[in-house]
C-alpha cells in the first residue's frame, strides 16, 4: 500500500528591499529543498530597490507584489491569502538561510505527526554558530518574549521535537487546519508579538506549537526595523501594550499554584544548579514560584548572593515578592537552614550522602510541616535519625535538552577509550582509589585514558601534591585533569559526550547529578552500588560497583558525625574498568538504555509534576 502524497506547502518569503538577503535566502532554499510538494511565493512588500526586477528573473518563484510596505503582519497575511486554500503555509523571513537538505520535509512530517500539532518551528542559529532560538516563552511579569537557548554555544542542544509556548515566525510551518480555524496573523499587531499571539490563539483552539529540533536554519537577524532603533522601539512598545491587553489575564491564569522557594541560585553548587532547573520546570508546570536566597550572613554559608543570575527567567523569578508569610514555602538546601522557612505551610527539602542525618537537621526538620527528600535512601535515613514529620520522596531530574546522546563532544584524536569522572576533591569521592586502581589496571601503552574534572575550593587542600603522593606508576594507565574549570551548564553535555564511560566511585551520594547527566547523554557508567543515586541507577543501565561494607563517615564536614558511608571495592572497580574497556558494545548498549530511561522517567518535568501533585494535595 502506498502512503498518501504529502500535503502541499506554500513557502511564503516576505521581503522589503535588501535584495542581497532575499537572493541568499532563495539561493539556499533552492539548493536544499525538494519542491515536488511545495511552491515558493515571495511577497514583495513594496520594495524600491532591485528586488522587483530580480524576482521577475526567477521562474520557480511566484510573486505577490504589494504597492506599498504593509508591514510584517499584513505582508505575511497577503502571502497566506495567496496560498492555495488546501495547502499548508511556511512563513520564512528573507534573512534566513538554509543549509540542510530535507528541512521542509522534516517540518511537514512533524506538523502531520499528530492531529493536534498546529505550528512547527525549528532551531535557529546565528551565522557565527551560536544558537539563537529553540522556542519562546513570555512571562506575565514583564511581557517581554524570550527566546529559549539564545546565544548559547551550539552543541546540538534542544535537538528533540518538543512542545513550546511559542516560536519566532522567522520560520514557522502553519498547518492548514490552524489557518482555517483561527485565520492568519492578527492585524492588532503591525510587527512583533504577532507570532506569540498566533501560537496562543492556536492553543486556545486546541493546537500545539512544537519545535522540530532536527532542523536548524541560519538566521541573520537583519529585520527591516531592528536595523532602525527608533522605529523598532516604537513598534515594539505599541505591540507589547496590545499584547498585554489581550493576553495579560490569561497568562496569569496559567498558574494554578504559587510557591515561595528559598534556596541558592548563583553559586556553582549542586543545590544551585538543580534549583535553577526546578524553578524553570515548576513554571512550565503551572507553579508561580517566587525565589529568595536562603543563605547569607548569620547562616552556615554567610556569602551574599549576586542579584544577577545571568538568565532572564531566573532574574524575573528572583524579583517576585512572596509576601511576609507565604502560604507554602520550601527551603531547598541543607537542613541547618530549615528554620529560615517563612511560610505558613513549611517544607524542608534536602539530601545527604550518608545513612543518617545530623541531630540539628533532624531538630529543624521536626519543626517543618513536612520534609522532602529526593530518594528512598534519604527518607529511610531521616526516619532512622528521628524524623517525626511526614516525609515525601521528591526525586530530582535531568535536563534532556542539554544532556542527550546527540550532543556533540570533542573526540580524542588519538582514539583512546575515555573514562570520565566529574567530582569535587573531597575524601568522600575516593579520588585516591580511582586514580590508583586505574593506574594499576591499565598500562601506559593501552589506548585508554582517565579524564578527571576536578573542583577544589578548599585552601588547605593541595590536589596536585596529593596526586603526586599517590606514587603512581609511570608505566601505568594515563590520566588527565580539568582543574577548577567552570563550564556553562548548556555545554556540560559536550564534556560527557567527549568520553566513553562515566565513573562515580565515591562513598555515597545525596543524588549525583553528574552521573545522571552522563547517563542522559548515553554514557555507560560505573557507579557505587550504595547511596541516593540507586533511586535511578540499576544493573540494566549501569555497572554497579560493589561495596565491601559501611564505614564511619570520617570527613571534615560536621554533618557527617555519627553516620556511615560506603567502602567501594577497589578490586571490583579494577574488574569493571577492564570489563567496560573490553566489552565496548555491551557498555554502549547500556549507555543507550540509560539515556532512554532518563528521558522517559527522570526529567525535570517529571520532578515538577510531582511537586505540582503534592501542592494539589496540600491545597
Amino acid at each position, binding site marked *: 500500500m502506498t502512503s498518501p502524497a504529502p500535503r502541499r506547502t506554500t513557502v511564503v518569503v516576505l521581503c522589503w528591499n535588501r535584495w542581497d538577503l532575499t537572493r541568499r535566502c532563495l539561493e539556499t532554499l533552492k539548493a536544499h529543498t525538494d519542491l515536488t510538494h511545495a511552491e515558493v511565493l515571495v511577497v514583495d512588500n513594496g520594495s524600491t530597490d532591485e528586488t522587483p526586477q530580480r524576482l521577475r528573473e526567477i521562474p520557480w518563484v511566484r510573486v505577490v507584489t504589494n504597492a506599498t510596505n504593509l508591514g510584517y503582519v499584513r505582508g505575511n497575511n497577503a502571502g497566506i491569502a495567496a496560498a492555495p486554500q488546501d495547502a499548508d503555509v511556511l512563513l520564512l523571513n528573507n534573512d534566513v538561510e538554509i543549509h540542510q537538505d530535507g528541512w521542509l520535509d522534516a517540518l511537514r512530517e512533524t506538523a502531520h505527526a499528530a492531529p493536534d500539532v498546529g505550528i512547527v518551528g525549528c532551531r535557529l542559529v546565528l551565522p557565527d554558530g551560536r544558537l539563537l532560538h529553540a522556542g519562546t516563552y513570555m512571562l506575565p511579569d514583564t511581557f517581554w518574549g524570550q527566546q529559549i537557548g539564545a546565544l548559547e*554555544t551550539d552543541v546540538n542542544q534542544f535537538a528533540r521535537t518538543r512542545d513550546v509556548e511559542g516560536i519566532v515566525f522567522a520560520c514557522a510551518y502553519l498547518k492548514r487546519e490552524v489557518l482555517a480555524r483561527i485565520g492568519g496573523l492578527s492585524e492588532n499587531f503591525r510587527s512583533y508579538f504577532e507570532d506569540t499571539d498566533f501560537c496562543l490563539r492556536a492553543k486556545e483552539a486546541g493546537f500545539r506549537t512544537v519545535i522540530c529540533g532536527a532542523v536548524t536554519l541560519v538566521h541573520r537577524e537583519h529585520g527591516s526595523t531592528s536595523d532602525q532603533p527608533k522605529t523598532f522601539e516604537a513598534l515594539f512598545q505599541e505591540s507589547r501594550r496590545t499584547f498585554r491587553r489581550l493576553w495579560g489575564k490569561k497568562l496569569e491564569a496559567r498558574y494554578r499554584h504559587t510557591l515561595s522557594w528559598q534556596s541558592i541560585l548563583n553559586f556553582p553548587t549542586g543545590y544551585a544548579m538543580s534549583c535553577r532547573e526546578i524553578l524553570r520546570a515548576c513554571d512550565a508546570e503551572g507553579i508561580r514560584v517566587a525565589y529568595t536566597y536562603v543563605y547569607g550572613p548569620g547562616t552556615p554559608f554567610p556569602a551574599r548572593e549576586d542579584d544577577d543570575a545571568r538568565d532572564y527567567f531566573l532574574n524575573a523569578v528572583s524579583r517576585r515578592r512572596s509576601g511576609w508569610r507565604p502560604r507554602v514555602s520550601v527551603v531547598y538546601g541543607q537542613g541547618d537552614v530549615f528554620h529560615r522557612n517563612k511560610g505558613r505551610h513549611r517544607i524542608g527539602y534536602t539530601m545527604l550522602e550518608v545513612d543518617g542525618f545530623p541531630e540539628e537537621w533532624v531538630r529543624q526538620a521536626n519543626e517543618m510541616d513536612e520534609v522532602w527528600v529526593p530518594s528512598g535512601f534519604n527518607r529511610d535515613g531521616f526516619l532512622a535519625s528521628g524524623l517525626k514529620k511526614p516525609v515525601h520522596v521528591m526525586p530530582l531530574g535531568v535536563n534532556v535538552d542539554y544532556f542527550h546522546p546527540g550532543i556533540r563532544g570533542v573526540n580524542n*584524536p588519538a582514539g583512546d577509550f575515555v573514562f570520565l569522572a566529574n567530582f569535587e576533591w573531597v575524601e568522600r569521592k575516593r579520588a585516591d582509589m580511582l*586514580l590508583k586502581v586505574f593506574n594499576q589496571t591499565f598500562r*601506559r601503552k593501552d589506548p585508554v585514558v582517565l579524564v578527571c574534572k576536578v573542583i577544589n575550593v578548599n585552601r588547605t587542600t593541595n590536589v596536585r601534591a596529593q*596526586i603526586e603522593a599517590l606514587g603512581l*606508576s609511570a608505566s601505568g594507565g*594515563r590520566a*588527565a585533569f580539568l582543574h*577548577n574549570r567552570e563550564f556553562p551548564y548548556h555545554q556540560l553535555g559536550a564534556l560527557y559526550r567527549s568520553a566513553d564511560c562515566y565513573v562515580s566511585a565515591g562513598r555515597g551520594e545525596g543524588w549525583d547529578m553528574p552521573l545522571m547527566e552522563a547517563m542522559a547523554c548515553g554514557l555507560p557508567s560505573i557507579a557505587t552500588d550504595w547511596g541516593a543515586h540507586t533511586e535511578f541507577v540499576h544493573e540494566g543501565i549501569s555497572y554497579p560497583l560493589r561495596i565491601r561494607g559501611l564505614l564511619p563517615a570520617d570527613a571534615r564536614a560536621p554533618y557527617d558525625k555519627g553516620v556511615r558511608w560506603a567502602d567501594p571495592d577497589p578490586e571490583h572497580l579494577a574488574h569493571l574498568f577492564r570489563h567496560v574497556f573490553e566489552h565496548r558494545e555491551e557498555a554502549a548498549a547500556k549507555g543507550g538504555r540509560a539515556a532512554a530511561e532518563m528521558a522517559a522517567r527522570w526529567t525535570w518535568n517529571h520532578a515538577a509534576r510531582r511537586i505540582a501533585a503534592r501542592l494539589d494535595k496540600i491545597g
Partner: protein
Amino acid sequence: MSDDAELERLRVEAAELRDLVRALSAALARAAAALPPEAALALARGGDAGAESPFQLEHWNDTIEMTRADVASEMALLWKRLPPRESP
C-alpha cells in the same frame, strides 16, 4: 694492573662519558626544540612531572578560584596535552 694503567683506563672512560653526555645534550636540545613552548619549559624545569609521567600535571593551576571556560577549547587543549601512549 699498575696505577698508571688504571689512571689511563679511567681517563678513557671519562672521555667516553663526556662524549655520551654531549651526544645526549644535543639530542635533548633537538627534542626540546620540537616541543611546544610549555612542554619545553616543563622539561627544562625537570623534577616532579616530566615527560614520563602518565599524569598530566605540568599545566596544573593551583588556584582555588574557578575559571570560566568553554568545553570545546578545553577538551581540544586537554587532548593535545595528553601524555603520549607508550609504544607496545
